[in-house]
């Protein structure tokens, strides 16, 4: 799936609901990533022509190869846990100014068909029930609730 020339809506992400004065540009491939989730509930990666790795989220430059990328790759909504951590301690979320709800599980997930790690949340906080190597599937928000940001993926759940 090489990048088509069609115009896409370019998205931004606001720093928070509290009116912090930041508005970050996602860029064209990142915008496509969120639109692909909204449209098809699947992930989008991008292949580096030099090192051949498929990277998620898609970005314009391969950091290792310093190479411009343009070959988008459709991926599924499943992956493998490469590493994880159950967060049990309280801290202030700088995006909201309030305490991040705990416990939650921070997960490094290798999305099937990609060659790097996507970080997100896994909905299992019992460390005896989660292991490196387990398969997971993304759970998305309802389409009408999606906003074009990372929270459109609610979490990953373990496929048991």
């Amino acid at each position, binding site marked *: 799936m090489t990048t088509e020339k069609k115009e896409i809506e370019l998205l931004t992400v606001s720093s928070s609901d509290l009116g912090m004065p930041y508005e970050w540009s996602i860029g064209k491939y990142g915008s496509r990533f969120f639109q692909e989730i909204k449209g098809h509930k699947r992930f989008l990666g991008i292949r580096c022509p030099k090192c051949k790795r498929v990277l998620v989220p898609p970005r314009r430059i391969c950091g290792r190869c310093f190479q411009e990328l343009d070959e988008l790759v459709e991926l599924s909504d499943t992956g493998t846990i490469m590493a994880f951590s159950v967060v049990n301690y309280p*801290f202030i979320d700088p995006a909201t100014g309030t305490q991040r709800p705990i416990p939650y599980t*921070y997960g490094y997930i290798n999305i099937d068909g990609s060659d790097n790690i996507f*970080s997100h949340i896994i909905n299992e906080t019992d460390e005896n029930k989660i292991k490196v190597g387990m398969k997971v599937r993304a759970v998305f928000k309802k389409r009408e609730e999606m906003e074009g940001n990372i929270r459109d993926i609610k979490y990953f759940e373990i496929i048991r």
Partner: protein
Amino acid sequence: MARRVAIVGTGQTYHKSHRLDVNGRELINEAVTRALADCELSIADIDAIIIGNMDHFESINYVDTWSVEGSGGYMKPIMKVTTGGTTGASVAIAAYYHVASGLFDKVLAIGWEKNSESDTTAAIVTCSDPIWDRFSYSGAIPSLATEASAYMEQYGATQEDAARVAVRERSHALNNPYAQMYNRPITIQDVMESAMLAYPIKLLDVCPRTDGACAVVFAAERVAEKIAVNPAWVKSCSVRHTTTWFGDVDYDTGMLSLQRASKEAFANAGIKNPVEEIDVAELYLPYSYAGLKWIEAIGFCGPGQGPKFIWDGNTDMGGKLPINPSGGVMCTNCIGATALLRVAEAAIQVMGKGDARQVPDVKTAMATGFGGCWWSDVVILSKEKP
């Protein structure tokens, strides 16, 4: 061709969790004053200053100018260098570059942090990408915990193995009155019974939050030997950065940046067998599992051999290669100063000024810095001129 450079003086604060009696500038001034006293120089002798701390931690911009009263930088060239966890090593290496270039003879490197002035985790979270990573990222501890969980899975290392590292650091800090955790020894049982912060990291597996500062004076060859009887010569410095994204780091290959930086630093220092040729190491180990895995990346032992190397006592005081006689990062972590403390402590060992924490007959010492997305700095110091 780079000029020869030596460290001629070091100074640090008595590190505490909260120094409410001083503001940041005054904290910096304590370290600077001690460093100048250590090498019997006055601030007028200093040609330039490099200063650094963590972005966002105290919500202070332009730390170079903001800190002038503390650093003594009025009407001097000052540069701020900030590279996350490696900031302290980066200010040291930048000071080295200044002197090695031939443009400055005596340069003061300063690292500092007043962790009590903000929520450390909230501040660290701002280092992650705001669009993709910040939503799930929760600061240093879970980021390290993911590495630890993968390492345990790969090599069968245990929580007790890591606890042994935590016990070593606290036991070494018994000899260092500057350490925040001075005189607070712990046992493996204490570590195992401490609160689980983020599996597999427990409270006693991880560094504290500290208010503290460190200052180090670098001097050119032609003045260094006049200033100090036993200067600590800079043999080599290496810096390796990784990627923009946490998810692009290849966790299975170990700490690649530390492998590469160590390899280059050893080669440039003429070190062929690090375990035999390095007498003491002050390593930036922010949590106990790093004391297992990262010493493998450096090459002190093979992949998966970290636990055995530690249990055999090699890294204890009196062992083959003592690591962190100061108690290290797990006993003191004023983050912008932390990696500079590693360099300062390595210099102290080479200069023979370690008092109770001195390792006998140190010729060569190693210091490292570690930063967020798995980047590394390595500094090799020696009694012997490069």
